[in-house]
């Protein structure tokens, strides 16, 4: 049976088509989910894609986290459904409390679009099992508010429990604490990261196809379950 991966569209979401395409490239069925529907349409996993939900004028992800669709996402997360937040999706998951910490303006105050090397630190999450531990992957980063911050205790806990999944290498692009690019929840099912794996699925349109591993990982996790 094909895995069904839901992709949420909020007003202002931009990378929903791309996330769906990536899920398809990995062999899953991509199911569009609408922000105003409190229903996950029977999907096995959810991607909260990038963009500028509601313009992100107040604070990235601040308004989107209240959307009706987020109710069932939070419930599903509690039951261990694999959930991936990319960029704005990561910000939304933090605002919704599914992941700790927050994302603030890049330290140089500019939007940054670049091909970014990441080191895979944790390969036991639902979204990173296909990578080798310590592998370096090349993924586009494109965000204006990508600086990861958290209170000291939270940060210590994340590091102590090995919950930093991806770390920037070759220069910190946005001032993230501890060069953090992506983190996971305590069970390794919910992952959020600022860089865009869905833009690295084909060397024709991205810098590499290194991002595909995340989508394959999720399908593996679903088959195992």
């Amino acid at each position, binding site marked *: 049976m094909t895995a069904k991966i839901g992709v949420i569209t909020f007003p202002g979401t931009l990378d929903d088509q791309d996330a769906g395409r990536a899920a398809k490239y990995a062999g899953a069925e991509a199911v569009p989910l609408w922000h105003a529907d409190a229903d996950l349409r029977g999907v096995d996993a959810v991607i909260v894609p990038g963009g500028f939900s509601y313009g992100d004028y*107040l*604070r990235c992800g*601040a*308004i989107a986290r*209240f959307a009706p669709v987020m109710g069932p996402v939070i419930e599903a997360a509690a039951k261990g459904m694999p959930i991936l937040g990319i960029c704005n999706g990561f910000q939304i998951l*933090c*605002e919704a409390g599914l992941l*700790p*910490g*927050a994302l*603030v*303006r*890049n*330290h*140089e*105050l500019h939007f940054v679009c670049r091909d970014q090397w990441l080191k895979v630190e944790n390969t036991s999450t639902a979204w990173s099992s296909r990578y080798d531990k310590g592998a370096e992957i090349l993924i586009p980063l494109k965000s204006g508010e990508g*600086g990861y*911050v*958290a*209170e*000291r205790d939270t940060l210590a806990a994340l590091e102590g429990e090995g919950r930093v999944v991806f770390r920037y290498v070759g220069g910190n692009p946005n*001032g993230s*604490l501890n060069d953090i690019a992506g983190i996971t929840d305590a069970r390794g099912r919910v992952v959020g990261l600022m860089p865009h794996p869905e833009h690295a699925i084909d060397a024709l349109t991205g810098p590499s196809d290194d991002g595909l591993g995340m989508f394959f990982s999720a399908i593996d996790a679903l088959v195992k379950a």
Partner: protein
Amino acid sequence: MARVVVDVMPKPEILDPQGQAVAKALPRLGFQGVTEVRQGKRFELEVDDSVDDETLTKIAADLLANTVIEDFTVRRLDA
């Protein structure tokens, strides 16, 4: 009708890249003597008299501020 101001500021221990950028720019522009700058947000709300303080605090805490990284204050302006 009442006018309400909600001020939202980054918590002291949280990085404030915007405030820092201003602080760095000032001496370059010839302004000495500013030792620290923090940048936050100011919201001005027009609210019906039916909206009580508790609701205002909830609006600030749930939506206007992210209490993981920001502090806020709510105050009514005298009409």
